[in-house]
């Protein structure tokens, strides 16, 4: 057992802490999320320069030989600054598909681009009626000669407005909700028939509705096995969940610290409100929830390489526990900030919004509770 970070990992953390502090202060972020593009390509370039976009890839694939623990470190720091740049869709999701299932040619074509920052990905998995079931797909990919033709509508594709490529889940055979018959494709976003409608999200990011209208992709756009994509999707999304758990831990840590600071400064009845026991205990509960969340993030991250059942159980447990913690910490942070917590002017509201939306990404508390029950019985 060892909960220590290596020297290299500590160095990565320190350089990221600095980067986030220097480039992601609250006013700057507010300006960026309200701007037309909603993000900063120069930050992406900086992340590439620091080697962070290539960290989880093996050295032979052109990366730096890191793993899930490194992604955890990166995401926790991103969470502290509410970083909007699409690290999870590009590096964790697209990177994960390439790492686990990419052919030599696919790796050759895309990993270099991810590492140097020139290829940006979004992961189009959700559908208007599918809720959190990755197998509940209406999007189809039909084989036609040497290519596949995609049709369908993907919902709330995070980071898609900034993406050059999409990873798309689609049904290649079987009926809606069958676990078999699902395949994964890499699609150039500029391909004919890809139609997007871009919009901001309530937590300061950007997303798109993505429509595929007879989009023809070559056969080698298929990543992983034809019809056998579901286990791969589950593996990659478990990795994404672990990374987002780390992000949310970072956000919860700051939300808690901001709340304590505010409670110490804010005076009512002649004393700081931090001196009221009813608020003290609630800030203690927030702290306890945060610590439990860090533990669950470690558990999920360290179990990613285990057998499928152990991995899924740990990831679902973390998603449930942290989903609950994020709700409690977000709500209490606003309440203890009082009216000021309701204003756009204070950073806390932005943390609250990110903590809220986390629940609906890759399955909410109820969804993962069900998965945990199914795996435990």
């Amino acid at each position, binding site marked *: 057992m060892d909960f220590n970070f290596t020297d290299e990992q500590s160095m990565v953390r320190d350089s990221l802490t600095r980067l986030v502090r220097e480039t992601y202060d609250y006013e700057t972020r507010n300006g960026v999320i*309200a701007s*037309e593009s909603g993000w900063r390509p120069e930050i992406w370039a900086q992340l590439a320069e620091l080697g962070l976009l290539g960290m989880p890839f093996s050295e032979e694939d052109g990366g730096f030989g890191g793993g899930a623990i490194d992604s955890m470190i990166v995401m926790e720091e991103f969470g502290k600054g509410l970083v909007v740049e699409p690290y999870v869709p590009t590096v964790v999701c697209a990177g994960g598909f390439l790492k686990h299932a990419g052919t030599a040619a696919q790796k050759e074509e895309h990993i270099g681009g991810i590492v140097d920052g020139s290829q940006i990905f979004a992961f189009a998995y*959700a559908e*208007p*009626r*599918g*809720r*959190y*079931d990755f197998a*509940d797909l209406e999007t189809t990919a039909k084989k036609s000669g040497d290519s596949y033709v995609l049709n369908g509508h993907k*919902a*709330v594709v*995070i980071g898609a407005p900034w993406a050059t490529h999409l990873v798309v889940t689609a049904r290649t055979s079987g009926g*809606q*909700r069958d676990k078999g018959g699902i395949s994964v494709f890499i699609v150039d976003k500029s391909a004919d028939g890809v139609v997007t*409608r871009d*919009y*901001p*999200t*309530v*937590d300061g990011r950007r*997303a798109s*509705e993505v429509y595929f209208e007879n989009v023809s992709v070559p056969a080698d756009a298929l990543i992983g096995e034809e019809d056998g994509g579901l286990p791969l999707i589950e593996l990659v999304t478990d990795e994404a969940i672990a990374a987002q758990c780390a992000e949310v831990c970072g956000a919860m840590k700051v939300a808690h610290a901001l709340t304590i600071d505010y409670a110490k400064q804010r*005076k*009512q*009845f*002649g004393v700081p*409100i931090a001196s*009221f026991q*009813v*608020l003290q205990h609630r800030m203690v509960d927030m702290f306890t929830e945060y610590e439990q969340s860090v533990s669950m993030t470690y558990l999920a991250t360290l179990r990613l390489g285990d057998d499928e059942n152990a991995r899924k159980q740990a990831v679902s447990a973390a998603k449930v526990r942290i989903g609950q913690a994020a*709700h409690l910490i977000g*709500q209490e942070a*606003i*309440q203890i900030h*009082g*009216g000021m*917590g*309701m*204003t*756009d*002017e204070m950073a806390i*509201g*932005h943390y*609250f*919004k990110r903590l*809220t*939306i986390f*629940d*609906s990404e890759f399955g*909410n508390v*109820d969804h993962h*509770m*069900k998965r945990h029950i199914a795996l435990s019985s």
Partner: protein
Amino acid sequence: MNLEFSADEVAFREEVRSFIAENYPKHLSADGLRDDLSPEDMVAWHKVLGEKGWSTPAWPTEYGGTGWTPTQRYIWSEENARVNAIMPLPFGVSMVGPVIYTFGNEEQKAQHLPGICSGDVWWCQGYSEPGAGSDLASLQTTAVRDGDHYVINGQKTWTTLAQHADWGFFLCRTDPDAAKPQEGISFILVDMKTPGIEVRPIKLIDGGYEVNETWLTDVRVPVENLVGQENMGWTYAKFLLAHERSGIAGVARSKRGVEQLRDIAKSEQLDGEPLMSDFDFARKVSQLEIDLAALEITELRTLAGEQAGKGPGPESSILKIKGTEIQQRLTELTLEAVGHYGTPYYNGMSDLGSNEYPIGPEYAQHSASTYFNMRKTSIYGGSNEIQRNIITKMVLGL
């Protein structure tokens, strides 16, 4: 004891239901239609009710009340909630109106009550200050007597919809040397067009602008605008807050909200079945309904007490606490129900100049914004912590 409506009450329900059906402005009928309301939209129903004489049912009849029993008033709010009616704003009808008819003089009643009934005069509330929130009595805004005027200086905050207000009621310190902070406060009516008033919008976390900072610099107000006695304003303020608290429960509105939530959960799919058939989700909806039933009967007991001549007392704090917890839970479950489509930011889309057609189902559109916005309810009107303090002191005697 019984819970059934009498034949008269059933007839009354039919009467108000058909009145609402015939007279409620058609363009304001859509479910979930809440933002982008113009000021005219916000008072449209109030004006119709003003003409009918139904805008201030709880008032004494001599000032424009309907003389309805508490049960009739309950039926009235239920029937309005059924159509999601945009009700008269509380600042005139539920707040300053009762203060004026209870503590004001005849001139004040004659000047102000008709405009509140008709909906022609828009009121705002000048209570909170940056340094005086839960500790309202520590307020710093001063009103200094100068001949036959008060000169008001200070800063108020959270003045809801002050950008549209014609008049405001302000708590000001008139005796800075009073022994206790609660003493030395006066309740003053201010024409919002008076020189020296500046209203600055505050952007909230849901992206909307409903509250303001209000700055008062050498605002000269005639002494006739003092309500009741000088330095007795705290008594009137507390009276007003108790009135505000009982209305804050929002039972009828929450009942309608639960119905809407069920409809949404019937449309949303989980594994090819309606979300409403999912036990985990259904259990949460039922829990909410059970809590709401308890609150409803508690409110009816409070109303019955009022009918027997007891004003809303400290126990109305229960209504505020439970009412707001239920409203918040409702918006939380609605956001949960809509899944991925809680994520798009619709206000932001119009900011960025694109707002052609809705993304995802229409009922999902404001689910996140509403959830964020409703966090205010456990903070305003005396935070829920303050409500617990009130019960601790006034009811439990601790």
